[in-house]
């Protein structure tokens, strides 16, 4: 199937950026250390903040660093290329291809994420586990649920970024929206601070937003605070946002296609 | 510095045995890597007097752009002596920059995101060009290169041909003594090419600007340069008049004969061989140095000849011939008036 080929091609392409990957791993690890120490201080002050123990909080830090590139927590993730194609009008060619635009980019994004999960995720997580006492699960099954949750999170992340990219059909300069979307993801995914630590009603609302599906849910699955019914609810929550965003993407895409046809590209 | 203004007897561009050796790491086996020396430029010597327009050609990877990079001060030679208007490019890069203009066909020297006019304004200030000179030069370039409608457009939005014209103007605003043109017509349409050539010719004729031109398009050379230098494998294999290339390359001429009827390939004509037969028409090639008259006589004596025509070798095939013979027999050290490469 062509989707697999696209994903594999994208995977291989990102595998060639070796120096950039090494540099990214280094940076992720450095940031991991810094945030980990602040969390140690924070949890020393409030031992059960957000329902996490210290080891769980530290696991959250390193999970966030490991997923940073794969789940494109700061935006980007290759969809700038689509944005550029829309801006230059090259996308008209893509729309006439038999392959569906959204599926094409989803496949490419999954390939990229797969590579970056391995290339940029494993080493920071391993370093974190060596230096800090992490609460990593011992059973394969939890790791399996975690990977599934990561996959769903990446789909949600893609859904959001795809919408942002498509907005370039209507916006003259998409960089502002990209920036806002990146910032929103950084903050509402829990990258800066776990959403469970957010105070009061605000804390409850942010856990319902789509960004919560990208990092908070997978991290909770790995840490072990989501098991049984909570695990299932988390996965359904992710899948629901993923489906909703992909459907919305479809809708916007068909509107954009009509626009291209009307304006002749 | 003696003769720092380049007006003395010293030629404007004086290159003596320059070399550029790169050390590259090559994969050898799974993990081992071997350091290897690549002599990109292997002892080149030439001089260009003020006001001359010289073509500099060679196949890809022959050392052309490495030479240009050394002449412009981007790269430092590994050996040899190099002076442009008395300046050593490696040591006084910024002083040299004020005296030369450079146009790269493949990349712009303009500020990509700024409107063309802003780029020129920056050039004016950065080169500290006197107002009167700047205005005169800009006006002239705008007029001759049709730049007026482009001045407000950011460089990244210009088409290749427009950008190239913009680049050429930028390179000339500070009245450079030497203009390096590296593939100035690459990717341009016929009209743009003609415009660029015309302008370069005029700059050379009016201003006496010395021009060194590298190109893949030999029409550029044929239309602009009387002197041509050919580089291959890092060595000059020819330096002399364009006309001299023929003799140097041992090119072949072609005699095309029309016979009365279809016949087997013509045989037995000394010095010539038949390379193609198409109905009654046949093609015979023979060395360029040989006279065609005895050949025609020989054919006419034995075959029913109706018509004939003689074709001179084109520059392209001559150069191909030069490359094919390789650089192994060439020696550096030809003077600019040397008529042929050593064989």
């Amino acid at each position: 199937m062509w989707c697999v080929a696209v994903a594999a091609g994208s995977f291989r392409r990102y595998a060639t950026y070796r120096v950039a990957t090494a540099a990214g791993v280094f940076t992720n690890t450095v940031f991991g250390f810094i945030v980990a120490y602040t969390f140690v201080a924070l949890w020393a002050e409030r031992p059960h903040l957000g329902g996490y123990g210290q080891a769980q909080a530290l696991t959250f830090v390193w999970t966030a660093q490991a997923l940073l590139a794969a789940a494109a927590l700061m935006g980007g993730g290759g969809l700038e290329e689509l944005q550029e194609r829309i801006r230059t009008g090259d996308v008209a060619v893509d729309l006439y291809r038999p392959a569906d635009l959204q599926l094409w980019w989803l496949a490419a994004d999954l390939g990229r994420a797969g590579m970056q999960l391995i290339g940029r995720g494993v080493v920071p997580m391993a370093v974190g586990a060596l230096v800090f006492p992490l609460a990593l699960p011992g059973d394969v099954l939890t790791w399996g649920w975690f990977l599934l949750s990561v996959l769903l999170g990446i789909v949600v992340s893609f859904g959001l970024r795809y919408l942002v990219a498509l907005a370039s059909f209507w916006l003259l300069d998409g960089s502002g929206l990209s920036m806002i979307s990146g910032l929103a993801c950084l903050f509402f995914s829990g990258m800066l601070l776990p959403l469970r630590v957010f105070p009061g009603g605000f804390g409850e609302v942010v856990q319902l937003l789509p960004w919560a599906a990208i990092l908070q849910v997978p991290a909770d699955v790995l840490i072990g605070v989501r098991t049984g019914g909570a695990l299932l609810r988390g996965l359904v929550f992710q899948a629901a946002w993923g489906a909703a965003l992909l459907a919305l993407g479809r809708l916007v895409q068909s509107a954009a296609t009509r626009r291209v046809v009307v304006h002749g590209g | 510095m003696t003769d720092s203004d380049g007006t003395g007897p010293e030629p404007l561009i004086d290159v003596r045995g320059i070399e550029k050796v790169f050390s590259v790491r090559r994969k050898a086996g799974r993990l081992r890597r071997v350091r290897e020396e690549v002599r990109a430029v292997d002892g080149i010597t030439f001089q260009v007097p003020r006001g001359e327009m010289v073509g500099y050609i060679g196949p890809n990877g022959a050392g052309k752009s490495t030479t240009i990079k050394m002449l412009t001060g981007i790269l430092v030679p590994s050996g040899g002596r190099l002076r442009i208007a008395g300046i050593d490019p490696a040591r006084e890069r910024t002083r040299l920059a004020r005296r030369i203009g450079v146009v790269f066909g493949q990349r712009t020297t303009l500020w990509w995101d700024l409107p063309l006019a802003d780029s020129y304004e920056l050039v004016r200030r950065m080169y500290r060009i006197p107002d009167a000179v700047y205005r005169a030069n800009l006006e002239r370039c705008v007029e001759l290169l049709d730049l007026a409608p482009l001045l407000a457009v950011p460089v990244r939005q210009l088409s290749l041909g427009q950008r190239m014209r913009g680049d050429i103007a930028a390179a000339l605003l500070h009245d450079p003594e030497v203009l390096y043109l590296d593939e100035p017509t690459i990717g341009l349409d016929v009209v743009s090419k003609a415009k660029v050539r015309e302008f370069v010719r005029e700059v050379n004729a009016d201003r006496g600007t010395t021009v060194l031109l590298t190109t893949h398009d030999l029409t550029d050379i044929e239309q602009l340069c009387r002197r041509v230098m050919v580089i291959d494998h890092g060595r000059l294999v020819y330096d002399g008049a364009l006309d001299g290339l023929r003799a140097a390359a041992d090119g072949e001429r072609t005699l095309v004969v029309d016979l009365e009827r279809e016949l087997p390939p013509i045989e037995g004509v000394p010095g010539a061989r038949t390379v193609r037969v198409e109905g009654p028409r046949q093609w015979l090639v023979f060395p360029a140095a040989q006279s065609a008259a005895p050949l025609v006589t020989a054919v006419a004596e034995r075959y029913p000849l109706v018509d004939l025509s003689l074709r001179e070798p084109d520059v392209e095939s001559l150069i191909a011939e030069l490359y094919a013979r390789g650089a192994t027999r060439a020696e550096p050290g030809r003077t600019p008036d040397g008529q042929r490469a050593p064989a």
Partner: protein
Amino acid sequence: MADHDRWPAVREGWRTAAAQGLYAYGLIVRMWVRSTLAYRASFVMMAVGNFAACALDFVAILLMFSQIDALGGFTLPEVAFLYGTSGLSLGLADLLLGSMDRLGRRVRDGTLDVLLLRPAPVFAQVAADRFALRRLGRISQALLVLGWSVTRLDVDWTAGRLLLVVLMTVCGTAIFGAVFTTGAAFQFWAQDAAEVQNSFTYGGNALLQYPPTVFAKDLVRGVTFVVPLAFVNWLPALRLLGRPDPLGLPGWVDFLGPAVAALMCAGAALAWRYGLRGYRSTGS
């Protein structure tokens, strides 16, 4: 090569290079500012975004302090003081030299060659290229936080103490500037390694905005003696806040900022020269 005419030329070269560099830097910066302001709406949006991106960091700190009273023994105004001083220094260095992390890309796509054709030092051209006024966002955000913390801190603000704040900002800017430059020089060899310097600039900033008591001693030693970022704000700020330094260094070390900054700038300049020389001899 004739060596007898070399040294006067080199000395003269140094003097003129500095003047040429400043001149060219000013020219290019002015041009970028003008062109930025031509698209005012877009500029405002990017500046606000820059401001917001930095502010979110501080919002995270505020959220932490909604759950606690002190972090590593430091109160919110104290952490805000560290945050503001570090952010201000980084913001200024980022504004002045932030485009240098594009060097690797310039080497890769060959546009560095173009800079070598112009009669101005390459450093000035690289530093000024794409001068981004939107980075005022970070600076103003840091200034706001710093201003707030100064009014809340229990410190007697004498002229001397205020001067120390100014001095540490200048030195901090120089130190971060040296890191930007060294990182760019590193990209002469590793063209795709632009992200490494983020560890030291943005990562360093993330580190310095928290109290040193939060971090492991070895990490604090590392940023004091190896990559001396601690001189950006930690050491002088601890003195201002009347706190002991976790490494127990002698008191005069707190005032070494200018010397450390000068040393780092000299090192960065050497790295840059070495990198550029390497580029000019290998073309890559």
